[in-house]
């Protein structure tokens, strides 16, 4: 099968070439994207070796992770554009020697070891995913859960090391209500009564369209009509709960009706102690075959929002939450430990 060998060699050389470019180029973003394409070439080699799931996973994961590496390189390296042609290397001879020794060692192992016979056949792509799934839930269950724990420790370590706890309690910039320093204590929901929620002074209105788009719905065929209807609907929506952070009702359109967020009770429980705001299942005019309680003022969101809702006046003070920098003006931040250069 010389075709497989040819493509393996081609992608392999591409991977090695990009690997070398990573350390030779002066521009940091070029070096990060060179590593990205090196990983993509390695993913392509996985595909050539018929490990489809791993290959596509490698191609996908590495694209996002290496781009994040690119932004961190741009944040922390002296001359990200590479204009100054600065030479950021030291102990050059040692590393060259170590690299050569490593390569020689691996090649020696490659040639000296006795690899054994080639397998007769390998499972198909769909079969591989299924087998990996069974493996995941079967023999390697412990590894799977310990990987989860490793990721948990990584998240906690990264947050603890890198993120400065907010000087002001972490009020979301219009987000769906944040725990801030007082955790996710269950908050007695305000109840979804009242068509227009009191002015959340601190809850600086940030476009909440994020994930509970009120404006328009994208399902179903006859969208155009609904989209417009939806918009006017919103306009008239006094009698309808206009939860500013709740899931806007997609129910404007008939047919499949509003897909309830029974999850909200579910999620409510997941949040631990989140008092599911049950009384706000205000009826909503949509044919419902959804799966249980649906509401548009997410109990849990409202619970969180209202719980830490600050009356308008309270919100005004210096640490008034501005959407972008959900923190006080810099002056307040510059406490003792950081001197201000200017």
């Amino acid at each position, binding site marked *: 099968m010389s075709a497989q060998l040819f493509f393996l060699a081609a992608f392999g050389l591409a991977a090695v070439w990009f690997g070398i470019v990573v350390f030779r180029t002066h521009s940091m*973003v*070029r070096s990060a*994207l060179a590593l*990205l394409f090196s990983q993509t070439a390695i993913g392509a080699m996985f595909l050539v070796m018929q490990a*489809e*799931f791993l290959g*596509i996973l490698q191609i*996908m994961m590495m*694209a*996002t992770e290496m*781009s994040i590496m*690119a932004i961190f390189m*741009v944040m922390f390296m002296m001359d990200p*554009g590479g204009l100054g042609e600065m030479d950021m290397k030291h102990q050059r001879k040692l590393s060259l020697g170590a690299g050569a020794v490593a390569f020689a060692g691996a090649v020696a192992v490659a040639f000296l070891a006795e690899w054994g016979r080639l397998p007769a056949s390998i499972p*198909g*792509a769909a079969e*591989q*995913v299924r087998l990996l799934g069974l493996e995941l839930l079967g023999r390697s269950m412990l590894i799977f859960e310990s990987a989860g724990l490793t990721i948990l420790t990584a998240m906690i370590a990264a947050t603890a090391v890198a993120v400065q706890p907010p000087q002001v309690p972490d009020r979301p*910039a*219009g*987000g769906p*209500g*944040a725990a801030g320093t007082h955790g996710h204590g269950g908050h007695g929901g305000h109840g979804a009564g009242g068509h227009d929620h009191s002015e959340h002074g601190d809850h600086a209105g*940030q*476009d909440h*369209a*994020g*994930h*509970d*788009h009120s*404006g*328009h*719905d*994208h*399902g*179903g*065929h*006859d*969208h*155009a009509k609904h*989209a417009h209807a939806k*918009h006017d609907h919103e306009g008239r929506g006094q009698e309808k709960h206009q939860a500013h*952070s709740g*899931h806007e009702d*997609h129910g404007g359109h008939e047919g*499949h009706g*509003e*897909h*309830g967020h029974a*999850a*909200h009770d*579910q999620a409510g429980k*997941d*949040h631990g102690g989140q008092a599911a705001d049950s009384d706000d299942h205000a009826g909503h005019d949509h044919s419902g*075959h959804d*799966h249980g309680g649906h509401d548009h003022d*997410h109990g849990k*969101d409202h619970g969180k929002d209202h719980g830490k809702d600050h009356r308008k006046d309270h919100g005004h003070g210096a640490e008034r939450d501005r*959407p*972008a920098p959900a923190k006080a003006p810099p002056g307040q931040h510059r406490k003792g430990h950081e001197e201000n250069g200017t």
Partner: protein
Amino acid sequence: MTGLVLAVALGLGAYGVAVLEHWASTGRFRVAGPAISALALLGRESILPRKPDRLFFETAPVLLLVAAVLSLAVLPLAPGLIAADLATGALAFNAALAYVLVALIMAGWGPDGAYGMIGGWRFLGQLIAYAMLVVMPITAVAMRAESLSTVQIVASQEGLWNIAYQPLGFALFALAGMAMAFAPPFDLPTAAGDLAGGVEAEYTGVRRLVFRLGRMVLILSVASAMTVFYLGGWLGPWLPGWAWSAAKILAVASAMLLGGRMVPRLREAALLEWSWKLGIPLALANIFIVGLIVLVVPT
């Protein structure tokens, strides 16, 4: 033979999306509009910035177009009509669209312009917001279909479409899909109002034509992904399979483009906050719900 049909379908679909986008942005429905603007772009000079990262500046539009077309290649339009029926098709769709981010970072960083650079890094923030919300709904879809192959996923929606089976997943995937195609109101990287064109500010002439072609194919690909994953692909009572697919894709694309312009542009801080504090919990909840339903409902 299917290759030719697919190419024609891709061309027509992209042109249809371009007409819808022209209608949404200029308010006039002119079928010839995109053709005229494409020819005009072909006739204009393609200016190269003076000290750019020439490699980035040249590869960005091509990479965007390649990523969009590859993501379309794994989506079926009709029972036999698919470019590459991979066993992990749903994953491949997501993998191809991860390179849209790489293309936009290159387009933003290459020409050394302030608007472009800010637009490029903003889109990385936008990816951090939408990436998880694309992946988890697809997992829920795969749970029902017991396979990652897109053809299997469509076949599994025989009785009940996924929009009815898992509507929460649909809502999240719809919004995340629009964010992935940076269609308004998620057009942070190419915002007209605050970045005067952002990443595509420095592109003129034929490079801009390739960039816009990539965007149109991207919107088409996101619309057809929504159709395949949630609206039962080619399933439909009377019309032939491809007709249903085409109708659904154009309906979803028009809803995305027209509905999206009724809402003011989002802020990156709000997008990140909403997706991480509300979106991901809902996506996890969606997986649990679908998990329960899959066990309970016998089909």
